[in-house]
């Protein structure tokens, strides 16, 4: 059963002609200005002037960016520039780090996710996450995918659950490989299969946004290509934010690209434009290999 505050977050406006409950928070002027196309017409998520501190150390400064429906947004930049930190703000995974402090505003379909009324459990069901290192649970393939629907009560009976598991595995392009070994441990799959299992696990609760933190960095080129294809297919149904250290990957999978540099969001724009015609000097330096 859903309680009231979960219902607020779970209730989704129709994606075609939705009306935002409130206008996004205005971006405040500060000394660091992001160049390029920060806002979009109909964002699913908006972040405004987000700062993150680890104890006293500021990790990201004044990040404002929108995430659109059905887009893949990639985030690139030299390591340590705060990409993961920003990504983890979007589903409040930073709550698990005691020293982390987040200020600014982050909204999911108009609801402030850092609001006291927002339930973090529901938020994370709507904004799923795939991690750098594949981390399937040490349970069977089936149990891995069924876990989310189980804890959120999404299936009324066993056959519904079976169906969710099959659909999710199909969408993750893993069904044919594992349909005969659903009861075998998920940790026994190959690295690429494990990562696709994690994606299946994530989409089994039917999230709106999927966050991916360097999902291919532990995989070989073939497995990487497989995941990139998958990301492109998933865009039909989900918004995806992907952190990657590979510029080629960003160019291949994303529609928009954001470039981070030492905690600042330097430039955001359509991927094709960023890669061919960056506006900011730092972006250009990074893309041409003069930096990082």
């Amino acid at each position, binding site marked *: 059963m859903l309680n009231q505050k979960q219902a607020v977050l779970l209730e989704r406006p129709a994606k075609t002609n939705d009306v935002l409950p409130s206008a996004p928070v205005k971006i405040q002027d500060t000394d660091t200005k992001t160049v390029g196309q920060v806002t979009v017409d109909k964002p699913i998520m908006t972040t405004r002037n987000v700062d993150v501190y680890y104890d006293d150390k500021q990790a990201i400064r004044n990040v404002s960016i929108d995430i659109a429906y059905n887009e893949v947004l990639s985030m690139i930049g030299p390591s340590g520039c705060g990409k993961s930190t920003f990504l983890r703000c979007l*589903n409040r*995974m930073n709550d*698990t780090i*005691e020293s982390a402090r987040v200020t600014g505003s982050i909204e999911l379909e108009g609801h402030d996710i850092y609001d006291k009324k927002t339930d973090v*459990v*529901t*938020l*994370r*069901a709507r904004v*799923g*996450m795939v*991690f750098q*290192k594949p*981390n*399937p*649970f*040490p*349970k069977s393939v089936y149990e891995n995918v069924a*876990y*989310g629907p189980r*804890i*959120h009560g999404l299936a009324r009976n066993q056959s519904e659950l079976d169906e969710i598991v099959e659909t999710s595995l199909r969408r993750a392009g893993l069904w044919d490989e594992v349909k005969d070994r659903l009861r075998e*441990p998920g*940790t026994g799959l190959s690295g690429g299969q494990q990562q696709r299992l*994690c994606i299946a*696990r*994530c989409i089994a*609760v039917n999230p709106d946004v999927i966050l991916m933190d360097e999902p291919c960095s532990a995989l070989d080129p073939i497995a990487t290509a497989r995941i990139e294809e998958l990301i492109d297919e998933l865009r039909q149904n989900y918004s995806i934010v992907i952190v990657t250290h590979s510029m080629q990957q960003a160019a291949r999978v994303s529609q928009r690209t954001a470039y981070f540099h030492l905690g600042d969001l330097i430039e955001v724009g359509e991927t094709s434009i960023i890669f061919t015609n960056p506006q900011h000097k730092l972006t250009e330096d990074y893309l041409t290999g003069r930096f990082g």
Partner: protein
Amino acid sequence: MTPTTADKIQAGLKKRYAAERRFRGYGLVSVTIGLAALLLLFVSIIGNGYSAFQQTFVKLDVQFDEAVIDPKGTRDPQSLARADYGQLIKKTMRELFPEVKNRRDKRKLYKLVSPGAVFILQDMVRKDPELIGTSQTVWVPADDDVDMLIKGYIDRDVPESARRLNDKEIAWIDALAATGSLEKRFNKIFFTAGDSREPELAGIWGAVVGSFYTLVVTLALSFPIGVAAAVYLQEFAPRNRWTDFIEVNINNLAAVPSIVFGLLGLSVFLNFMSLPRSAPLVGGLVLSLMTLPTVIIASRASLQSVPPSIREGALGMGASQMQMVAHHVLPLAMPGMLTGTIIGMARALGESAPLLMIGMVAFIVNVPEGPLDPSTVLPVQIYLWADTPERAFVERTSAATLVLLAFLVIMNGAAVWLRKRFEQRW
């Protein structure tokens, strides 16, 4: 010509290899010493203790004389129980050795049979009153001195005055042995009886049951409390001065000598709360105090070793903190927690000092029937027997030690087995 790098390496190589060989040698010597000590321990314990698993029995042709057992012929169970079965045995012995006339010699003759024989006859009649009036062949335990002579622990060459058995007694025993009336049999009494002043009637069952109740209480308290405390401290508690303080003190408690917990138990459980003395319940409470820090520390270490990626995976799915712990972390940590607990329990099983303080050192004949009955435990039983002068208790001390070791081996085996099983579930 200046020496090349390869030359320099070559020059030092011999020394390096020699150092390595020496190091391996030291290791091998240490391992050998350790194994030899263990072997010595086992050889000496088994060598001393194995004979206690057998006991000499005497064959008696007992005439269940109605005039002695039931002179009124009522077959009333109470009067049957009160009858003087000792007379039957004495009569049998007199008939075996009719030449013994002297009163003092007769008393010595009767003492060749264990005083426990009386209860065996009594029990036979209670179960089957039809036996009255018949003659039966009964094997009853021999006195411990007879047993020791048969097992060769009494030296016939020492002067009579320095021997526990005089020449006449030895002659009777030899006569019995010659007619096949003495036989070494499996010592069931040792495994089924409580303690006794008579070695041939003393057993470890009372202590085993006492240890069992004590450990059940210890496990029932220390496992749930220890695991709950570890989970709270590791997964839920905020990191602040209070939790640091608690953590330091748990580590300190683990290093407190066990006798201190006994003193604590004496003053709190016995003097303040007036719980019964010598009871497994109190023993279990004291041992729980002693075991808790071990369980908490092992459980925390095992929780800590669960990879953070599993936690992140669960939280990233929208699992609550509680679900993350219950569904993922705890099952993964459970083998380690069980191992820690079983090691703690094994320590508790071998512990005697704190139990001495709460009176579990009393001489108790009855096998306890519950955790509130006075009882002793295996290591204390060993301690008690080790303190007695009779030769027959020496072998029983070693035999009881063997039983204790066997339990410890079984517990450790169970720990390994459980750990394997839990790991296979994934």
